[in-house]
């Protein structure tokens, strides 16, 4: 891509008169650059940061208790309420725990799986495995969650499979939420980790074994540090997607609610309060990203 751009510029140079604009742009590189970036920057500003800022501002408004219309009067009432009622702390902690568990389980499944796909399977079969990992993403989210609801129900698939082992389905609740979210977001963890393992040069592994390291040692001291950034990239997906989810909790959560459910209930009745609640996951994600960037994992992505 970059090569073609340079080539075009070279062609333009000998004939400046009919290409005055491009010549002008060539002389003013910053204009060229800002023109090129203006569309994505505008998108980032208006649609992305704009929406976030709008949400943050809304959190300081209040609502008419009867009509539920937003009243644009500045107040800290929503945040006071968030802090004063322990229920919101509970649901925030519960959501972070669920998101962490989902991320952890995803990582535990994804690392051996991706290792197998990238380093054990013959190269020509790799594509088939990648397709297999991606296939669940082609099905609708709702269909998958409802399918899990049917599997988890009393005398469902899980019950009949586990019965010979003296176990039963965990039923609807926290465990069900973690299982279903893990299933939903697993591909987002496997793919970056797979890419990480695939990028790893064979010579490193050879060098490690030449120096006398056994398989386990090579995996722990050479491979794992190399794929750690990919693992972090995957964890950002699984963690943030789990933190924002509310539909899974609604369908298989029994009586458990996550922070997304609290936002969803209040979005209808008290939009400013919903916005205030929604700042919690945003804050958690900002902290998470800050911690992650401290480890330097983001620099190598």
């Amino acid at each position, binding site marked *: 891509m970059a090569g073609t751009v340079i080539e075009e510029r070279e062609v333009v140079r000998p004939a400046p008169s009919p290409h005055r604009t491009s010549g002008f742009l060539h002389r003013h590189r910053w204009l060229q650059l800002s023109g090129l970036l203006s569309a994505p920057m505008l998108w980032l500003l208006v649609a992305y940061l704009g929406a976030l800022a709008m949400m943050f501002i809304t959190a300081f408004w209040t609502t008419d*208790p*009867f009509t539920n219309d937003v009243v644009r009067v500045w107040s800290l009432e929503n945040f006071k*309420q968030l802090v004063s009622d322990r*229920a919101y702390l509970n649901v925030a902690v519960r959501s972070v725990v669920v998101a962490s568990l989902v991320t952890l389980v995803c990582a535990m499944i994804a690392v051996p799986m991706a290792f197998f796909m990238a380093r054990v399977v013959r190269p020509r079969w790799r594509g088939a495995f990648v397709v297999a990992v991606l296939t669940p993403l082609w099905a609708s989210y709702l269909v998958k969650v409802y399918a899990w609801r049917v599997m988890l*129900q009393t005398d469902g698939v899980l019950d009949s499979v586990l019965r010979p082992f003296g176990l039963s389905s965990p039923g609807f609740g926290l465990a069900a939420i973690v299982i279903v979210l893990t299933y939903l977001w697993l591909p987002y963890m496997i793919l970056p980790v797979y890419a990480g393992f695939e990028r790893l040069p064979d010579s490193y592994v050879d060098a490690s074994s030449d120096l006398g390291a056994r398989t386990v040692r090579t995996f722990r001291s050479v491979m794992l540090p190399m794929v750690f950034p990919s693992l972090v990239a995957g964890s950002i997906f699984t963690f943030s997607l789990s933190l924002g989810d509310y539909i899974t909790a609604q369908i298989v959560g029994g*009586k458990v609610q996550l922070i997304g459910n609290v936002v969803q209930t209040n979005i209808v*009745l008290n939009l400013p309060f919903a916005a205030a609640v929604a700042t919690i996951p945003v804050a958690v994600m900002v902290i998470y990203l800050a911690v992650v960037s401290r480890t330097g994992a983001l620099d190598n992505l």
Partner: protein
Amino acid sequence: MGASRRATLATMAGALVLVAAGCGGDDSGGTTTATGGLRPPKLEALKTLGPGEGQVNLVAWAGYVEDGSNDPKVDWVTGFEKATGCQVNVKIGNSSDEMVQLIKSGQYDAVSASGDASLRLIAAGDVAPVNTALIPNYKDVFDGLKNQPWNTVNGVNYGVPHGRGANLLMWRTDKVSPDPDSWSVVFDPSSPYKGKITAYDSPIYIADAALYLMATRPDLGIKNPYALDDKQFQASIDLLKQQKNTIGEYWVDYLKEIQAFKSGDSVLGTTWQVIANVAQGEGAPVKVTLPKEGATGWSDTWMVATKAKHPNCAYMWLNHIISPEANAAVAEYFGEAPSNKLACAKTADPNHCAIFHADDEAYFSKVWYWNTPIQQCLDGRTDVRCKNYAEWTQAWTSLRNS
């Protein structure tokens, strides 16, 4: 990295300033509705009925707008579409709160609003007055349903009555015995059905607890389950907290409740007649009853949105849904009392109106229609301040996450 981070920060700060500036201007122009007495904005009703616009977008309760796609025998929409040329598009609202939100989006023409939604919609100016002269079938509506506080404000009609009914108690006949006749079974802390009990997932469900306390704790002096002072409200919340230990799951999506009763994950809990009908149709052994304490219920009103893009088709729909034929069909399918007197002669079961007490005002005095709790106590008390719906909502969120 450092430079780009600074740039990002600068952009974010810039965006904040821009948005803040944009919003600041609205402060003066923002409309705030009166929180005291109900003073709806002045809006004009349709004066004359024009030709249909070709389609109409409805927000309705499940089972209110059936075009045969759920059950080929249940269809009162196709005939209307053929006769008027108005293609009917329906969006199911799972709760009154959801319906209010959908109407506020401005994409819908008419809504089947319950009492806890209708006044909110009127007060916010989201629905327009309805000119009943343009709805020929309105004259046959039971007088007991006309000009009621949930469909009429200051003598102005805001819709046509659809029908009414009660929230019922449903149970699996193979799992629960003896047959319950009281709400006590869902509030029993040592219930043998612990973990299999279900409840409606909406702040309005607090009224169900209040209604039970009204019968069992006369010392609290609850006169109306939607008018609760601090002490009465706290007692209701405490009861619900205790109930939460025995709840398996809360439902708001009616399909989820049908599935839960079919699989046996729920065996006992609050329901609508239409859910029982569908569950029975799909082979689940369930029964329903109106418990002796009475019940919460609904009296629904079809209203026309202020921002309706297809008002003529909306009026035609209002007239159609309260026509004797359609009103009989929907009342029978949903399991409620029709609003049109003449519908009683058109039901497949000739006793339908008797069974559902269509004109039995004494019966409906035991049913507390969903209403929006406000600060001014609905039961007429003036010496105390009642909890408003915003407080109900907060308490419900808090309860669900305690």
